């Protein structure tokens, strides 16, 4: 079976059992941060703020080890399986903790531990003075361990173990400042929404097991070509249900904007660069299954496109600098899903990587701004920070152009390649929606950038903005560099990353893709770049050329659509009505049923007996004795009846 998959994509990935060498130590990549989590929690009280050093050292070591593993894969490409003990072996279900390392794992490892390490360092400055400083670092280590389990698992169930543990870390970190009720609610909302997706993921696993007899990734990938199209369709949609929750796609994206309640380094690491991309990782990892159902892939593409557009529209009218970035993340994840849906799996991963750079950067920049602005987040209350925070300004500048899709910044290449593939694979509608979302992206990110950094200050004397300390600016500079040059990973369609990932993605040759029109690639590239320039130009006219000192009164777009965008299309209100109001009514009705009907019947039966027995005995013990007498008598009658009945 493996031959089938391999012939189609033209390259072979040999399966190697890694019992020696660097890769055989890959389990340390998970165990180190796990130990770090426990150690930091235990030593928290004794060491005080110094405890963060443990967590940072662990993150650094994990990064170094991950880099070593990734280099080994680059030098010697193969699918490595590191044998580990069994987790569950019950009936036909066998699940081991074996570690799975291939080219896709290598990419994910570098992104997760690289950005993770930087954000550990950044947090030293950002979280300084917090009363639960040590605990924050413990949670960061827990997150790192969880995300690495997700990436390294060789089985859908161990992947799911990581999947759920990142959910727990996310819950802990969103609700880190749990004293605020809305923050605690945001944490719960994130966990519950993800649980809805988890049900879908779990049912996908049940179905996969019923179909393949295993949950091992290798077994699924190798046998995928034998899938019936109907089964493949259902299976992919169930997986999409899980992926849509974790990666904040329609209709399960609602938790991510609220998740901004967490400290900003968390927003950068978990809710932009890494965890939220897990759904993209999952679908690309299982792309050999995806390619068995073009219908399901088309649905994924449309979910991605609708999410990219909807979130971009909402982002245009948000004023909170973190909320803008949150909706932007939802939108960019939509682009990645477009990539997955149109069969541009590798381009989707490419965008995942560049997005981790530029969105991680933009969030850290937002954190730096908040640090300077006494935790204010209203973009209208900023302005003119360019001079006061030069490093934050220039790194943000790179991030802004990267996400807007301006060449030669990294985001341009990855986004353009997704849209180009959509066009070449015949998804004209997706391509158009993607372009509109790209224009909006450039527009709202320019608005974000202009309102924060350009113009005159719109804040009073009560805040004194200043550049952030080096622990915060160094990660900004590193990510700024990566966001600038990240495009070099895959500057042309068949670039290095594209070829590197070739053996791990499903073959699309048999899907019969034909271009949506006659446009050549060079024209598509020009259109994509033009979209970014157009969006920036519009924002420039609206927010730089006009006087914005009057605040949000000068918003250029008015009317019902702007209103809708500002109110986020009332989706939260809609869900609130359905699940809280209607669901609450239903739950109330069940409680009524339980106490009045079921227990009512029980009590009524009791009351009747008490009434009949009360003539003789009234005490509690007497009551029980009377009951027992009646019951034994009844039992004897029943025995007699049964004997008579059956004979």
């Amino acid at each position, binding site marked *: 079976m493996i031959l089938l998959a391999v012939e189609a994509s033209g390259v072979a990935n040999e399966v190697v059992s890694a019992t020696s060498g660097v890769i055989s130590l890959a389990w340390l990549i998970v165990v180190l941060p796990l130990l770090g989590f426990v150690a930091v929690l235990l030593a928290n009280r004794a060491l005080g703020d110094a405890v963060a050093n443990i967590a940072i050292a662990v993150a650094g070591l994990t990064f170094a080890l991950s880099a070593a593993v990734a280099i080994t894969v680059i030098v010697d490409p193969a699918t490595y399986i590191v044998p580990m003990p069994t987790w569950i072996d019950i009936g036909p279900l066998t699940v081991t903790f074996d570690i799975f390392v291939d080219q896709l794992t290598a990419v994910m490892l570098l992104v997760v531990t690289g950005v993770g390490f930087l954000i550990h360092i950044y947090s030293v400055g950002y979280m300084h003075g917090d009363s639960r400083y040590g605990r924050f670092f413990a949670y960061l280590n827990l997150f790192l361990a969880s995300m690495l389990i997700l990436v390294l698992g060789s089985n859908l169930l161990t992947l799911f173990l990581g999947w759920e543990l990142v959910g727990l870390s996310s819950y802990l970190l969103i609700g880190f400042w749990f004293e605020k*009720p809305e923050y605690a609610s945001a944490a719960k909302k994130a966990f519950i929404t993800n*649980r809805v997706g988890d049900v879908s993921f779990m049912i996908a696993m049940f179905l996969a097991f019923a179909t393949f007899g*295993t949950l091992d990734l290798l077994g699924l990938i190798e046998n995928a070509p034998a899938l019936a199209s109907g089964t493949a369709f259902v299976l992919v949609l169930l997986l999409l249900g899980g992926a849509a929750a974790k990666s904040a796609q329609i209709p399960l994206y609602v938790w991510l904007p609220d998740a901004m309640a967490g400290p900003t380094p968390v927003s950068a690491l978990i809710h932009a660069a890494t965890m939220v991309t897990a759904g993209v990782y999952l679908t690309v990892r299982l792309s050999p299954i995806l390619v068995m159902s073009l219908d399901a892939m088309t649905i994924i593409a449309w979910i991605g496109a609708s999410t990219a557009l909807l979130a971009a529209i909402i982002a245009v009218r948000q004023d909170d600098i973190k909320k803008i970035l949150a909706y932007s993340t939802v939108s960019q994840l939509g682009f990645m899903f477009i990539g997955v849906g149109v069969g541009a799996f590798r381009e989707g991963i490419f965008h995942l990587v560049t997005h981790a750079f530029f969105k991680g950067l933009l969030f850290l920049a937002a954190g730096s701004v908040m640090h300077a602005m006494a935790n204010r987040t209203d973009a209208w209350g900023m302005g003119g920070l360019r001079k006061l925070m030069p490093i934050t300004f220039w790194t943000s500048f790179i991030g802004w152009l990267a996400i807007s899709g301006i060449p030669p910044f990294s985001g341009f290449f990855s986004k353009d390649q997704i849209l180009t593939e959509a066009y070449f694979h015949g998804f004209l509608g997706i391509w158009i929606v993607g372009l509109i979302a790209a224009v909006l992206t450039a527009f709202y990110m320019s608005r974000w950038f202009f309102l924060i950094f350009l113009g005159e200050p719109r804040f009073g004397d009560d805040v004194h903005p200043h550049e952030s300390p080096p622990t915060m600016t160094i990660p900004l500079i590193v990510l700024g560099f990566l966001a600038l040059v990240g495009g070099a990973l895959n500057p042309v369609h068949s670039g290095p990353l594209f070829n590197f990932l070739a053996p791990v993605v499903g073959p699309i040759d048999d899907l019969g893709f034909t271009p949506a029109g006659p446009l050549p690639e060079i024209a598509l590239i020009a259109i994509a770049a033009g979209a970014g320039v157009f969006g920036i130009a519009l924002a420039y006219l609206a927010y730089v050329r006009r006087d914005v000192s009057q605040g949000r009164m000068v918003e250029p777009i008015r009317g019902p659509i702007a209103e809708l965008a500002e109110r986020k299309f009332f989706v939260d209100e809609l869900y609130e009505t359905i699940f809280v109001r209607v669901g609450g009514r239903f739950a109330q009705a069940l409680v009524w049923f339980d106490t009045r009907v079921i227990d009512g019947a029980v009590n009524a039966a009791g009351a009747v007996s008490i009434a009949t027995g009360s003539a003789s005995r009234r005490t509690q013990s007497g009551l029980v004795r009377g009951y027992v007498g009646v019951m034994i008598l009844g*039992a004897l009658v029943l025995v007699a009846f*049964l004997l008579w*009945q059956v004979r």
Partner: protein
Amino acid sequence: MGMLSLTIVLPLAGALLLAFLPEAGDRSVKQIALVASLAALVTSLVLLVQFDVADPNLQQAETWVWIPAIGAQLSLAVDGVSLVLILLTTFLTPLILLASWSSITDRVRGYAAAFLVLEAAVIGVFAATDLLLFYIFFEFTIIPMYLIIGIWGGAGRKYAAVKFFLYTLFGGLLMLVAIIYLYTQTPGGSFAYADVLALELGVTEQRWLFAGFALAFAVKVPLFPVHTWLPDAHTEAPTGGSVFLAGVLLKMGTFGLLRYALPIFPDATVEFAPWLLGLSVVGILYGAIVALMQADIKKLIAYSSVSHMGFVVLGTFALNATATSASVVQMVNHGLSTGALFLLIGFLYERRHTRQISAFGGLAKRVPVMAGLWLLVSMSSLALPGLNGFVGEFPILLGTFQTNRTAAVLASFGVVLAALYLLWAYQRIFHGPLVGADNENTTDLKAREVGILAPILVLIVGIGLYPQPLFDLVEPSVDRVLTEVGVEPLDIEPIAATSEES
């Protein structure tokens, strides 16, 4: 005397000693009770060491003549399933006794004796291989539990105790009828499990008898719609009573189904399985939704038990090695998670003397250790992978999916609801601003209390990551039962094999 009978006799001996030492002070009462329960833990561990894991049959058998006139014997034996549940019982009892000493100050001697008798009776239920003996142990557990709720319980204890007594006694009596009928069918009249198992029963007989057994066990589990005694019993019982009730007593129902209802009435089992799957699914969802709306934290957890025990029954009647073995593991997991939750609730109650969720708020700031452990146990209860609940629930659902897809899919939504009621309760108790002097002055767990929880927490994490010893212990016995029922081993044809032809 073998280890098995010793494990029953030791707690009983402790109770007798307490009864004959009326002069003993509370301190020595506590010591005697603890020693007796620890001794039972030791003998049950010896039993585990002696146990042959590869042998699926009942082993370590001990038999004494009891009532020769009717062929009743004092016969005991264990298989993997009963051994696991005996260990759960002997593990939890010392912890319950230790946890009780700070709250029980009245009639300590009686309390300790009641628990020891209860422990002995429950072990008897799991170990008996004579149906009459089983019935007597089964019904006898009601008496000490009735006293524990009725004497040491809360304000509404009388109502709760009587309700518990009548509900469970009523269920039990139907089973007695069935047992007597089975006795009349055995050649020469015997209550021995092996003899009853050997009976060739007609389908009509099986239906009636299955109903008798199943109802008794369903009340005990408790399965929807015969569950309403549990919330009252839990709410009014003292902490120790709640822990024992959730931790061990409910398992008598699911154990009974697996040991008696399934193998003795195989045709009826297969026939009624879809109905029981349906009731389980209703219980899982219904219990969880009703739990959501509870204002009393103990009631909330009581309804969550209805939901979680639904998973156990679901797995049992899925009738395949994966789901049914996992349902036994889930019995243990539910005992540990819910036991730990009730202990935590007890510790909180001792500080605040209320169980109303609305009375709390923002406590995490004041009691970080309690909050952290509470969250850990909640995560175990909502089946977070890596903790014990998941390795029970997931294989149950996966196995059930192979036999009944609708039931498995519907039951899966229970995991969303579990997260909802547990995290919502957690948020209301521990998150938000710290308001009011009562919350302000709540103190964190003491080292002693953490120590009581620690063994359970170790198992919650340990089983979550390394459940295999438990599966290995349980699976051969479950396979034996499934063979009795006549179910083919689950065999999934790998897709590659079928695809070659197409």
